[in-house]
């Protein structure tokens, strides 16, 4: 029996979480549909003035993405916690951060990536221009992983607490607001023809992504150790 390298372990964890998500085929599908539905609900509540809608579009899409990722964050660690798998993970001879990173990646692939892929279709509903669409999708591509990763910290901190879902949102939403601001900011900038502002917003998102990639797995791992005591 061979031993696993760090990289193989990462792949193993990602594959495991994807497998679990696929086992309930509905899983991926439903995050998506939730997203579509929230986005479609808004015009319903607001009325159908095209001008108004176009203005709202980036905000609504981003907020919906934030909520969709929030909604699925609850299960990031809790299932593993309840059935004792998390204990086993903490006893893994490799660093816990790697495992956590793997879980975050899987979470993004299940709950973030589908949104990025469907966003252009929804953008059409709101009558967004082609460049605005492009920027929106690029922004989501950079931003949704950050949401999953920051969310991971919150999920780890609220592990095993009752009412965790809501407490989680309370902790995570404030931290996610900058992502939201840069993401929508980029779209507004391109709509207003300010290419410089657009690029700087996207660059900030990219910086946040790098930053989270390095820091959040470690912070979440610490949070998990605290929560397990």
């Amino acid at each position, binding site marked *: 029996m061979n031993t*696993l390298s760090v990289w193989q372990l990462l792949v*193993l964890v990602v594959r*495991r979480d994807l497998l679990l998500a696929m086992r*309930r085929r509905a899983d991926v599908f439903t995050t998506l549909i939730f997203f579509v539905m929230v986005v479609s609900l808004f015009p319903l509540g607001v009325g159908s003035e095209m001008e108004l809608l176009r203005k709202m579009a980036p905000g609504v899409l981003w907020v919906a993405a934030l909520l969709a990722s929030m909604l699925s964050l609850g299960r990031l660690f809790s299932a593993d916690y309840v*059935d004792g*798998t998390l204990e086993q993970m903490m006893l*893994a*001879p490799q660093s816990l951060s790697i*495992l956590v990173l793997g879980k975050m990646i899987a979470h993004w692939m299940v709950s973030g990536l589908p949104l990025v892929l469907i966003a252009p279709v929804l953008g059409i509903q709101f009558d967004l221009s082609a460049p605005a669409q492009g920027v929106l999708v690029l922004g989501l591509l950079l931003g949704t992983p950050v949401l999953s990763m920051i969310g991971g910290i919150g999920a780890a901190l609220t592990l095993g607490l009752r009412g965790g879902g809501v407490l989680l949102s309370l902790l995570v939403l404030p931290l996610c607001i900058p992502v939201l601001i840069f993401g929508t900011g980029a779209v507004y900038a391109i709509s207003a023809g300010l290419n410089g502002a657009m690029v700087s917003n996207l660059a900030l998102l990219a910086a946040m992504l790098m930053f989270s990639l390095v820091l959040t797995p470690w912070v979440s791992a610490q949070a998990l150790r605290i929560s397990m*005591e």
Partner: protein
Amino acid sequence: MLEVSHLACSRGDHRLFSDLSFVLESGQIMQVQGENGSGKTSLLRTLCGFLSPESGKILWDGTDMRELAEDYFANLLYLGHHNAIKDELSGVENLRISAGLAGIALDDKQAIAALRRMGLKGRERLPTKVLSQGQRRRVALARLLLGEAKLWVLDEPLAALDVGAVELVQTLIAEHLARQGMVIFTTHQPLEIAGMEMRRLSLS
């Protein structure tokens, strides 16, 4: 060699044990005894680092376990009250993943062989949620067949098992001891390993 010295542990207002010291050498087995709530699980979890002891030290081959961290975990196999298996995954998938977490690459054939040895023939590919309580415990116990971990920490390994399975676990433990492993465990059921001196630690 596991060396525990002057360990103390409190939960809430209750002092569970204090000034607990023992040494466990290769090839030795020790049963932690005590009534419900006497602190057996707490002791085992402390040995795994899930709980921080109030005072005292846990040394592995002479080094503090907190310092060793992952190097210590590589020598450890812990089986808790919970089975640590996923309801939605089959026995084979579960076993491959838990092996992976312990750093061991396992293919389907090996996993199936291990599950068969645990008496799960014909159930290897079923999602574990449809299995019976005892069968699920057997899936969890299949991990004992793979590891090269030296120290087994088993919290009520016999829970939910029928007579045949209990015997199987006894055999596995005997084999592990024969290859110079160490075992520390709790149980409320009688468990004897033929030809082995069973050390007992009583908490009260």
